[in-house]
């Protein structure tokens, strides 16, 4: 039913494949490295887009969830569990093939750590979500920012999380068959597809959600929480669920990214990262999943490629302001692109008028 909603997804899938084939043909597969990383960030961003754009709840702490995923996986896959080898749990995991000993060390399977990461994320999202989602406006912004900062402080101040150095030497994640999430150059193409498959699955799930009864309820909360509740929508539960889902998206991205990069550092939990996520969602046009996805991939790609050198942050700040001034509905929106052009022209005109003919804008 309503297969039309999946047409853009098919186009995306085709584009993903086309890009890979293009790089293969031109011998420029190295572009896939950053496209893969960008895809994981895009996963965080579409989750956040659902929370912000559709349910209307801002979160300035989503890097915290990314870090929870990434750090849990990193700690658990690098930690030597041989001290626990006698315990019943380890025994069970061993018989299930989820723990393996090598070189005198006992390591857990990445599946176990991934599961643990998701469980922890869901638990934290519930615990933190119940109280903070009662807040609104600046107070919600502050509380979520506070959450993000606390996570940042914890990873930066705790030895097991590697403090400022973060965690290195995280092994790859053998998913199934020959599939393996890892950063080695031979696995570049399959990792590109793994990341984008996750993004596509995530997008499909979120599209489904938005168009479902639950999604409608979420959007109604954004429209008017009071009216939504009067219509029988359990607003606090719905807000909480979508918060948890977006947290899981972030955490999942963090976990995969840790395997891909072979480690994680505190910069992933930095507040600036959270701010960037929010800004990218805004740049994409808030309640616009495709806009968020496009901007998420594009802006992260530019940043990871280092195109802007030391002006990366400046460029980012400038983009934020420019979008809010000229295209507050987001860039990926045809109507808006037109008005943006009009507004930009009128701004230029007014500057010209103020400064006299051919004056300088500075």
């Amino acid at each position, binding site marked *: 039913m309503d297969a039309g909603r999946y047409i853009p997804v098919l186009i995306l899938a085709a584009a993903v494949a086309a890009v890979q084939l293009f790089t293969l043909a031109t011998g420029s597969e*190295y572009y896939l490295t950053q496209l893969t*990383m960008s895809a994981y960030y895009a996963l965080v961003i579409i989750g956040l887009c659902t929370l912000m754009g559709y349910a209307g709840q801002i979160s300035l702490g989503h890097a915290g969830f990314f870090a929870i995923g990434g750090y849990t996986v990193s700690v658990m896959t690098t930690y030597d569990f041989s001290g626990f080898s006698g315990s019943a749990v380890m025994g069970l995991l061993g018989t299930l093939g989820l723990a393996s000993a090598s070189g005198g060390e006992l390591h857990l399977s990445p599946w176990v750590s991934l599961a643990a990461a998701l469980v922890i994320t869901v638990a934290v999202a519930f615990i933190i979500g119940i109280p903070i989602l009662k807040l609104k406006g600046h107070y919600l912004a502050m509380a979520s920012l506070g959450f993000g900062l606390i996570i940042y402080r914890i990873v930066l101040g705790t030895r097991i999380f590697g403090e*400022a150095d973060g965690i290195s030497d995280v092994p790859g994640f053998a998913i199934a068959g020959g599939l393996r999430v890892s950063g080695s150059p031979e696995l570049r193409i399959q990792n590109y597809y793994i990341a984008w498959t996750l993004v596509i699955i995530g997008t499909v799930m979120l599209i489904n959600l938005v168009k479902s009864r639950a999604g409608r309820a979420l959007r109604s909360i954004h429209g008017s929480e009071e009216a939504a509740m009067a219509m029988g929508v359990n607003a606090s539960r719905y807000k909480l669920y979508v918060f948890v889902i977006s947290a899981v998206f972030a955490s999942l991205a963090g976990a995969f990214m840790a395997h891909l990069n*072979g480690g994680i550092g505190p910069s992933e939990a930095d507040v600036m990262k959270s701010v960037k996520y929010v800004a990218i969602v805004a740049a994409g046009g808030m309640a616009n999943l495709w806009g968020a996805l496009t901007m998420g991939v594009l802006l992260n790609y530019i940043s990871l490629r*280092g*195109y802007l*050198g030391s002006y990366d942050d400046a460029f980012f700040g400038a983009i934020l302001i420019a979008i809010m001034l000229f295209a507050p509905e987001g860039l990926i929106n045809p109507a808006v692109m037109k008005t943006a052009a009009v507004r930009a022209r009128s701004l230029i005109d007014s500057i010209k008028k103020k400064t006299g003919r051919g004056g300088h804008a500075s």
Partner: protein
Amino acid sequence: MSLKKVLALTLSISVCMAAAGCKKAPEDAIKIGAIFSVTGGGSNLGAPESKTAKMLVDEINAKGGVNGKMLDLIVKDSESSPEKAISFAKQLIEEEKVFAIIGPSTSGETMKIKSICDEAKVIMLSCAAAEVIVNPVAKYVFKTPQKDSHVAMRIFDTMKKMGINSIGIISDNTGFGNAGKDQLEKIAPQKGVKIVISEVYDKKATDLSGVLTKLKARNVQAVVNWSIVPAQSIVAKNMKQINLNVPLFQSHGFGNIKYAKEAGKAGEGIIFPCGRLLVAEQLPDTNKQKTLLVKYKKDYEAKFNEDVSTFGGHAYDAITILVEGLKKAGSADREKVRTAIENLKGFPGTAGVFNFSPQDHNGLGLDSLVILTVKDGKFVPYEKLD
């Protein structure tokens, strides 16, 4: 200067995309990648490193390059983010096919790309301090700053001479502070010094009187501050202000006169081990490093109108070592150059005299450090120089 820079900023934002695409370099140039934290948390390190590297490469190229080939330096600003460092390292290796990588500036970033470089068989000369970078040794990974353990040993040795037995440590929460704190805690028992208390402060800390009060309450005989951030001068000021009058030891991170200047009168008497760069002119002429130190110092200060720091020196050493390796190998063959670097002996750099070996990819001994102190706002030797 400001207007010019603002204009430059606007201009570069608009053209940087295009600029990134069309870098011009001679066909047969030797490409060298550099990953520095020019901005972001490690900018205290990355900025002078980046300046030094560019200056040095220009100088070498002006003299006709190495083995008749020009050097092409590609600097990437990682903003102290490991994920960016990873992305850049892969870009430099796979896309730019660089011959070697200089940097990164911080240990966290270095550790993330250590295996990437090693697997790709690309020589990496890290400018970060942590000991784990070269221990265990990775075949293609070297580092130029002095070992933390050596710095710690020199600090403890000085303390013993002063009769200090119980100390308090504070360190910043950067990789530098982190690694230093670990080494201090590891070596203290061997040297018979008791660490009464060890605290970590934020790299953006603006007031440390609280934590120093905690130290004061534990009656420490000296304070060791191990960090690279501006708070180094705040420590000195706060100690005086809360009347904690015990000797203050700093790490080699203090090796930038601006911190001493910031601390003003409170900075007087700070003791810290450091390379010889900062006291270059005061070295005896017999010293192997003197000529190059004086020259580097003069060039840098003339060109950038700012005081030289030991961090820029790390990049200086990385490049000169690489160039020496290239010269010794006679060709841009990675294996040969790597072996040449590994066997480099008695090579003078800013940090000390390098003696590499297959077991030691740092190559600096205890004697690469001298103990300095601050007197009348200047760095002077605490002991007689050799």
